[in-house]
């Protein structure tokens, strides 16, 4: 057996804002687990952009090496670059997130490199054979799928099933592997005309990156404008608990909780929300929670990262002012 890459695990990372997102870290963690199982190394493939201090960032998240592959944002160019890279190194597994980018690039790569691909996996078992588990029938059943032949296998992973928590403590430095370009121009047929960031005011509350949520404590109709202005200033979507929606202050599409939407926001500011279990069911996946409530014993403070005992009606205008001042300073 050659000491080559036939036990290695690769993960596809997209350098977003120069850092690794929580999902990227989850993907690296899963990759690390599988690489250890297979007795191979874990490499990250970065098709475009730069990750700031990639050696440390990827190393800390469990990666042994990384390939700054080039190819950028264009899915066709990216797939062509990845295909030549995969065919040269033949890793055992190549994983990507099942997000807009991964779900678009991986099928192109599978077709170009003639490799099997399993999409939206919830689990991967690596022993003699690799068994991919994915949800089918809308999640009612799980299918165990295998790709006979033992060659490289591709998979996209459901971001909601990635392991959570901190990366394994072994701090290492990932090695940078240069990618030799064969210099041939890649022919692309799709022309990406524009990309539009979602307007926070209209984006689905479950998809929003930042959320301002209001509850019965503040949801008088005449107050809504104050919170809407604050949400606009911080580029957040405005949502609310069931009492806020029942009072007619917000439409049902903006309801958070068991009978509404589940948030996936990076940060949520929860104003005047007591924090019943029906509501907190919808904020389990929020990254940072800031709760503002006049009641010191409000249950919402149990799950908050920052608890502020104050009247939100008083605090929020001040915060809006503060953000406006900051925006002006930043713009000047």
């Amino acid at each position, binding site marked *: 057996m050659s000491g080559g890459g036939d036990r290695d695990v690769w993960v596809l990372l997209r350098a977003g804002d120069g850092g690794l997102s929580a999902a990227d870290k989850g993907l690296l963690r899963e990759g690390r687990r599988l690489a250890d199982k297979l007795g191979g190394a874990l490499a990250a493939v970065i098709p475009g952009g730069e990750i700031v201090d990639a050696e440390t960032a990827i190393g800390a998240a469990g990666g042994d090496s990384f390939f700054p592959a080039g190819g950028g944002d264009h899915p*066709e160019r990216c797939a062509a670059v990845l295909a030549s890279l995969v065919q040269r190194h033949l890793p055992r597994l190549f994983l990507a997130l099942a997000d*807009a*980018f991964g*779900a*678009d690039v991986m*099928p192109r790569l*599978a*077709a170009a490199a003639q490799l099997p*691909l*399993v*999409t*939206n996996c*919830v689990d991967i078992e690596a022993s003699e054979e690799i*068994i991919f588990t994915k*949800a*089918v*029938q809308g*999640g*009612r*059943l*799980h*299918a*165990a*799928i295998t*790709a006979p032949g033992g060659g490289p296998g591709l998979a996209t992973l459901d971001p909601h099933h990635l392991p959570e928590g901190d990366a394994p403590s072994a701090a290492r430095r990932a090695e940078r592997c240069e990618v030799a370009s064969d210099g041939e121009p890649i022919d692309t*047929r*799709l*022309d*990406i*005309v*524009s*990309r*539009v960031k*979602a307007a926070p005011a209209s*984006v689905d509350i479950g*998809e929003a990156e*930042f959320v301002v949520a209001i509850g019965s404590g503040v949801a008088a109709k005449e107050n809504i404008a104050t919170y809407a202005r604050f949400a*606009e*200033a911080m*580029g957040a979507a405005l949502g609310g608990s069931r009492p806020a929606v029942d009072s007619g202050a917000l439409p049902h599409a903006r309801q958070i909780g068991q009978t509404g939407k589940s948030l996936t926001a*990076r940060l949520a500011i929860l104003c005047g929300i007591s924090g019943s*279990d029906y509501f907190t069911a919808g904020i389990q996946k929020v*990254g*940072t929670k800031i709760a503002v409530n006049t009641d010191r014993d409000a249950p919402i*403070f*149990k799950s*908050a*990262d*920052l*608890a*502020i005992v*104050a009247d939100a009606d008083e*605090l929020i205008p*001040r*915060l809006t002012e503060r*953000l*406006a001042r*900051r*925006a002006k300073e930043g*713009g000047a």
Partner: protein
Amino acid sequence: MKILVCAKTVRYLRAQTGADPRQLNIGPGDLVDMLNPHDDAALEAALRIKDEAPETEISVVSLGGASAEAGLRRALAMGADQACHVFHDDFAALDSWAAANILAAEARTLGFDLILCGQEAIDTNAGLTGPYLAAQLGIPHVSRVIAIAPAPDGGGITAERRLDRGDRETVACAAPLLLAVERDIARARMPSPTAMLAACKRPLERREVAEAPGNRCVTLRLAKPKAKRRAEAQLDRALSAADRARLMMKGGRAAPAPAQNAALKQGCGEDVLDAVERMLIAAGVRVTSP
């Protein structure tokens, strides 16, 4: 323009009412044969192009067993010009690559300027047949499409696609190409009873699959989803009985201790504003002037 719509009749598990867990609790009547709703939407998108440009010709292709016929009749009743049944009895055993292989041969026979299909089938949830079909035909494809606009000169198409977190992307491409559309691109029209009756009398083109191509992926078994891995219950004796019961109902997750976890601030002073601002910046909020 000639549009080819690929539609699958799925065997969808709409409920699990059976008593036998060894049968995955699938009872009689739980599995229904229906036209994949994403493909239904793709057909509707094609029909809307035809509404604007009546010279458009729409062919619907369905690979499947005997159950595919009902879906094709429905497609004819909705307004498709031609329906083609690629018959394969054991099509559930085909993977996306093999299915795309058979469909590609059919597409070459029928000819096309544009191929529309659903983003995924609701029974297998793979989302691969579209991209694989495009690759085998050597044409470009766009996934997750939510709006289609034919270019005014007739040569190309612009498609709007859905990215993460509500972001959108617009892509332009010259025909021939394939678009995999999302379910909510258009709500499929309901064919009238007379159209349904008329469609029953129209001929379906039917072709047998002589030899099925090989699979790349093999489904070994189906199982019920495993329960999510959860932390062991750590019932804190200091908690009241009510709080402990609540903890158990939440799946045994240990309650975060508020005093240790949360930083508690009071009032609306500058220090509070500073703390909030720091958290906003740490989370990546970019402030804009309102």
